[in-house]
């Protein structure tokens, strides 16, 4: 779809014809800030709004019980959100027949966030050129090993275990997270340098081949840990090694649940 007008029109039709019970989209507040809105009344579709600073990844709401209870859903998606929705399809978290995607092109300019500079899905349906190494990743790679370790250890040390990263992430959909598992408790749940390291490491590992680089985790982090760099780096590796881009093709097997007999094993003796 090309404009918000078309989206509104489509949303109205969907609601009027009762093909969906709710439309999730962006609204505009008084302070000119964008925020998610949830529309059930076809009269209110005019509240739908879109501009370049609509950074929320709305896909996260698709699995919230208070939203799900409305039956079939329609959702306004930018490129990165669309990848999330498809990722959720591929991991059996949503059924494609129960979600209508209202795709909008995003110029990714006004947002001005780091995630947008490397964005490849400004147009939700047509991925663009390869993800270039961004400045931040290059900066990390230029550090010697110990410095890298210290950099991340210092970042992680600040973690207060509020789990905002987990809450905001559409792909952290485990009902009970590994960190909340006891017997055994693999990861200490209280804030501590060691436990924080393991937690953030594990979360990054769990997002391999699944993260869509929407960057919401870093935005949500109250202490400003650069989780996005970690996830972007892994997404890049997955693409280089397995030619896999998360959320592009809902039929493609996630990279860690499949293999090739001739996969690289240079690192194995």
């Amino acid at each position, binding site marked *: 779809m090309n404009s918000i007008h078309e989206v509104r029109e489509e949303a109205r039709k969907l609601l009027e014809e009762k093909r969906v019970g709710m439309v999730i989209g962006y609204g505009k507040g008084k302070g000119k800030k964008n925020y998610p809105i949830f529309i059930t009344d076809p009269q209110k579709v005019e509240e739908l709004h879109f501009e370049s600073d609509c950074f929320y990844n709305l896909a996260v709401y698709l699995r919230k019980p208070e939203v799900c209870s409305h039956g079939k859903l329609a959702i306004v998606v930018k490129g990165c959100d669309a990848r999330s929705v498809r990722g959720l399809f591929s*991991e059996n978290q949503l059924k494609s027949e129960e979600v209508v995607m209202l795709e909008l092109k995003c110029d990714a300019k006004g947002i001005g966030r780091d995630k947008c500079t490397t964005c490849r899905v400004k147009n939700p349906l047509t991925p663009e050129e390869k993800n270039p190494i961004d400045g931040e990743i290059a900066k990390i790679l230029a550090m010697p090993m110990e410095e890298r370790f210290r950099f991340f250890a210092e970042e992680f040390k600040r973690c207060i275990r509020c789990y905002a990263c987990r809450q905001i992430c559409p792909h952290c959909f*485990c009902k009970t997270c590994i960190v909340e*598992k006891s017997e055994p408790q693999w990861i200490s749940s209280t804030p501590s340098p060691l436990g924080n390291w393991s937690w953030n490491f594990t979360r990054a590992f769990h997002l391999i081949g699944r993260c869509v680089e929407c960057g919401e985790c870093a935005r949500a982090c109250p202490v400003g840990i650069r989780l996005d760099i970690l996830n972007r780096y892994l997404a890049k590796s997955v693409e280089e090694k397995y030619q896999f881009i998360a959320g592009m093709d809902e039929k493609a097997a996630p990279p*860690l649940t499949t293999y090739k007999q001739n996969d690289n094993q240079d690192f194995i003796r």
Partner: protein
Amino acid sequence: MARIGVFICWCGENISRTVDVVKVAEAMAGVPGVVTSVEYKYMCSDPGQKIMKESIKNDALDGVVVALCSPLMHEKTFRTAAEEAGLNPFLLEVANIREHCSWVHENKEEATKKAIAITRSTVERVRYNLQLKNITVPITARAMVVGGGIAGIQAALDIANGGHEVVLVERTPSIGGHMAGLSETFPTLDCSQCILTPRMVEVARHPKIKLYSYAEVESVSGFVGNFEVKIRKKARSVDTSSCTGCGICQEKCPQKNIASEFEEGLGKRKAIYVPFPQAVPNKPVIDRKHCLYFTKGKCKICEKVCGPKAIRYEQEDEIVEERIGAIVLATGYETLPATFFPEYGGGRYPDVITGLQFERLASASGPTSGELKRPSDGRRPETVVFLSCAGSRDLAKGISYCSKICCMYVAKHAMLYQHKVHGGKAYVFYMDVRASGKNYDEFVRRAIEQDKAIYVRGRVARVYEKEIEGVKKLVVKGADTLLGEQVEIVADMVVLASAVKPSVGAAALAQKVGTPYDQHHFYSEAHPKLRPVESNTAGIFLAGAAQAPKDIPESVADASAAASKVQILFSRKEMERDPYVSMVNSDRCFGCFSCEAVCPYRAISRKEIKNRSGEVLKVVAEVNAGLCQGCGGCIAICRAKACDLAGYTDQQIFSAIRGFNTTSTYEEEVVKK
């Protein structure tokens, strides 16, 4: 609080020479929860086991660690002993302080330290061992054999004679397989059909065998003891129950120049046909691709001449379902066609034939009634060149393996040829003669010494046709590597011992059944030495050349072995197996089904969790304990830690890891003392 007993073995001097076992016992005695820690010269001896057994009873142990040799040696021994003493056997663990410690280290202090660490880790692990019970699965004592060649026939008869029902599925219109087409068999030169046909008849008459000929396996679901099999009975266009097998339809059918599969293309058959006179069942089938009625819409002569009115043009494929407890795959082999060898003119020169074609030429029931004649002009071949390793051991042709049977049948061919064409010249080009088997090498020697076959060591580079004095001859350009010279032989016929490969469709069948196969599509055995007729999938057994190139005696031995494996399975109503299977906590599972994707055994299925009014709340993974082999792949992929592996739980491993780090200062001091 746990009550753990630790029993440390000296293994004579084997452990005690480098590990101070007394110190190990002393160190373990100080570990919380360890109520007894003793060492003994030979723990595995009767008195040694008795020490443990009595301690289990007297100290009311709920966990045991035996520190001794590799668990592969004695885990079973001690678990049995523990069970005898009333302890669940899975509450006992072995700490390997011999193979992994005393035998590989010289420094006594270091070795003792390591032995303490290993034992300590095992103690920590055993705290969390669960009381497990072997799993039982009900067994349907009914077997399916796929493939009606000699291997399938043997397996079916053995199982049926053991008193169990057998469903035999054969793809072609008759059972018998390749063996039915062979002339005489090595190393005794008895007639193939004479020994095979009685067995075929036995199959047909056996009350316990249900034969589906001209049928294929459509799908297989379920697991060991409980397979659901769908079989496609292909439309024969003949009602087999009313057909008497009189053969008049075949006699009158006007469509007569169809290359006969049974005759390897050297003979002809009709459009309605019985593949060979001794076929079982002896009922014809209409080849719809060639039948005039099916291609042109008119003829129906067979219907007119059929007395019992058994022709059914309208017949369609039929799917039947069978409940099966075990499956024997005996789908056999085929050989590379002559056209695979352009350098030998295969396919271009009619007198360049394959070994199986030679069998038909030499067979008394063959297209020439056993007289050796050239396919091109019917002349008696005065010189025949046999090429072994045609395609076998030939990377360039994609086949790295030895086809195994060729050396023997080439020798047999050379002999048969000599017996049929007196004074004829037989040359055999070979790389190696591999005749290992009872009376096999003697057989080859006989071909060389008595029947004067000339064996030339070398491969042939090229065969080309040349007319000499009005007769088309084949010029064979080879090398005699023993002389280091080129050899050129002008021959009348060239016989290629072309490579053995699995039947077409072998891989597709394996995929349906869910059993692995190798890069050549031969079925993979569970273990190359110790489990040669079992597949890696429980309840699927292998027989004959579907697993690797095999001759008749080996195929028969295989089939009997597979049949006995089936009967072992069927000997009980329920099957018992290791309790090491995955289990899913459906509260934690959120249904991403990564586990399903990585499971090699299709043991994970989807279960709907419903509320009381029947609404689906969520879909979660469920493990079929009958199929699960306990690899644990599902657990490592599960982010929510919703599954776990009995016997190797996360908690056990977690504790074992911590156990290596909890070596206390007390233990350090024990070592120092």
